[in-house]
């Protein structure tokens, strides 16, 4: 009996931790009312704001030039929710279809797919290094990240 108790205790701790984490994440979602999805460029970027079609075109791999600057999209996959909100509100595609589309375009027209970043630091580093580069982030993230700025708001709303 003495031997089994620690095992049961460990399992209980693991279960409780799991549910706490789940509840914690749910609480975040519930509390996350009034989020803002924004288009972000480097702080020294001179890019003007883009309309919805331009944003959609550039992120599905179609070349967009604005004020003689070729816009270079950086796909931010560091936050799954952010990625899905961006796809739903701006690209209007599912993630898998979007990725297939990008791949098909490369096969059909050549060139390179927009680079994907799962690491926030490297994303910001690339953004700062390339003047025509754009990406999307939560507005709150931009506020805590130096060297980048909000180009325009893409969506505002609550997430349940």
């Amino acid at each position, binding site marked *: 009996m003495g031997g089994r108790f620690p095992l049961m205790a460990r399992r209980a701790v693991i279960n409780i931790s799991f549910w706490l984490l789940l509840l914690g994440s749910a609480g975040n979602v519930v509390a996350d009312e009034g989020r803002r999805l924004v288009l972000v460029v480097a702080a020294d970027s001179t890019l003007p704001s883009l309309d919805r079609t331009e944003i959609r075109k550039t992120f599905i791999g179609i070349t967009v030039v604005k004020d003689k600057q070729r816009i270079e999209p950086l796909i931010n996959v560091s936050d799954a929710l952010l990625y899905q909100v961006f796809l739903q509100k701006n690209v209007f595609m*599912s993630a898998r279809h979007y990725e297939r589309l990008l791949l098909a375009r490369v096969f059909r027209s050549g060139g390179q797919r927009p680079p994907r970043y799962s690491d926030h630091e490297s994303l910001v580093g690339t953004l700062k290094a390339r003047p025509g580069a754009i990406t999307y982030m939560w507005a709150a993230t931009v506020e805590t990240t130096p060297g980048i700025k909000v180009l325009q708001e893409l969506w505002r709303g609550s*997430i349940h």
Partner: protein
Amino acid sequence: MARIDTLRRFRRSFTGRLMLGILVIHFVMLPLLFGGVLYIVQQGYQNQFVLHVRLNASRFASLIIEEWETKRVQELLDDAVFSGHVVFAEATDQNGRVVADAVDQPERRDFKEDFFYDRHGDDVYYAGLPLVDRNGIRRGELRLGYDETSTEAQIALANNRGLYLAAAYVLLSFLLVFFWGKRMTRSLEHLRRASRKIASGQLEEQLEVKSDITELQDLVEDLNFMRSELMRQTASMEHLASHDSLTGLPNRMLLSDRLQQTIASSQRNQSSFAFLLMDLNDFKEINDTLGHLAGDLVLQEIAVRLRATMRRSDTVARLGGDEFAIILPAAQKKVIEIVAQKLHDVMEQTFVIENQQLQLGGSFGVALFPDHGDNSTDLMRHADVAMYEAKRIGSSCVIFRDDLVHDTLNQLTLAGELRKGIARGDMVVYYQPKIDLRTGTVRGAEALVRWQHPKRGLISPNEFIAVAERTGLIEPLTFWVIDEAMRQVKAWRQMGLQLDVAVNLSARSLHDRQLPDKIEDIVRKQGADMRWLELELTESMIVADSLRAEEILSRFHEQGIKISIDDFGTGYSSLAHLQKLPVSVIKIDRSFVMNLSDNENDAAIVRATIELGHALGLTVVAEGVEHQAALLLLQELGCDLAQGYYFAPPCPAAEFEQWYGQSSWFNRLAAN
């Protein structure tokens, strides 16, 4: 219970184990395989649904903004809900006020936007699209709810079909494994039956299995190898079990079998056959003197000779020791006599073993079927009796006669009684005087044993000495005679009779290296002197094992015992060898002395022997003097001593003393 046993056996069988293995593998692999496939399918359906929702919502938003001013918004929303895919539609202005809405059920009004499939678990995917006009001005928001249940149904269908496929796959696998296992084990079962056949001794059938499985073919090859090895070993063992390992001849077991077969065959054909038993003469002496290796070589040589002499249809077997047996199928009495003569001749030929020439001989006993027995036991017993008789009478071959049974029984009875007689004190020592032919004095006496049987009276040594030698009783008998003779000679010397006494030694006694010590013990016990004792040996006893004889005779000589060569002239002694031995007396055999006066040849032999004896410094004694003519001739030839019935027959000690007292030989011989 039987069913449980069957299941247990099946579980332990090759097929059972195979199926269990497949089951375990599938239990681990199938959830991974089908779970993975179903997950991919599920993800595909969900992504397809999300794509549909996002594209459709985007287009619908574009349509709504086009009709924003025409008040057809409500109509479009209703159409969307009527299509079935959209279960909730709502358009709000820029202040969030609902402009138009449509819903298939009232409870769907709780709009919680989804960004992942089935995020809220309400079977509806809610998506909100901003309504932006051509000028980029946001006019409101379109909220749509898409029914997830059709996708769920597709996923559930895929899951079900996946499960059915998995089940079918497992079932099919089981069936295939079952049949495959059965097919494989069919070969194994065949091998099992074959191995049982091998175990039961059915080794002739070559194993064959119709299988291209390498391991099975290897196993069949190994089993066939094992089978052939077993056949070889079995044949070897059968040969060992039925043949004598030394000579390679059939042994007693095989002989018995052949004898039974020959009896059956002869009974069927109404024919006769002969069964011969042979025992070597003096084989024990060879073994004892030259060693067992030499004895083995002799036996091997005999086997070779017998095989070479006999026909292929005859059976020559070794029964053990120096005993051989021969079956002569379809043999008549005349044929047997010829064969016996051939065998005798073969056995008489000199054997050269370890550079020594040996003279052997065999005693054959023959029993005929059906005259002397119609079964193997009788035939063997009667052949044995005949062989015994041949040995007894010194013949090379004796064919069984009915009276031999009685003789043999007598011999056996005699042996038993002799043993008792020695213990009981039935034995009596007779003394025959030895007369000095120059002085006429009695120089000594030869001690001769007699058996005073309580029922049969006095029994001659000719009747029981041979029995005593065969049964080993000769040794205690010899010691008894020496003991008695030394006691007597001491008594005589105390009485003033200065006599020595001569005792005959058996050939068997010379095998005992402790003999000088034992004799010394006896003489000492009687308080007698070793010089009063003379031991008589025959030439053949010395020749048979000259080295040992030389050793023992030297011991006797050192002890002061005189050695006499008895029956001189009848054996094959080497005079050169005799010269080296510490012999002091030779006794001319009675066969030469008895007809001395009538036979010139005998006289010549006696003369030569006396001259030779004297030349070697030996005392010469003539035995068997039975009449005066012989006595006179012996005196003339210069013989030293004589004994025989002419002087006195062997008689008990008391009679000897009486004879001694009345003896007038001194005067009579002096008168010659």
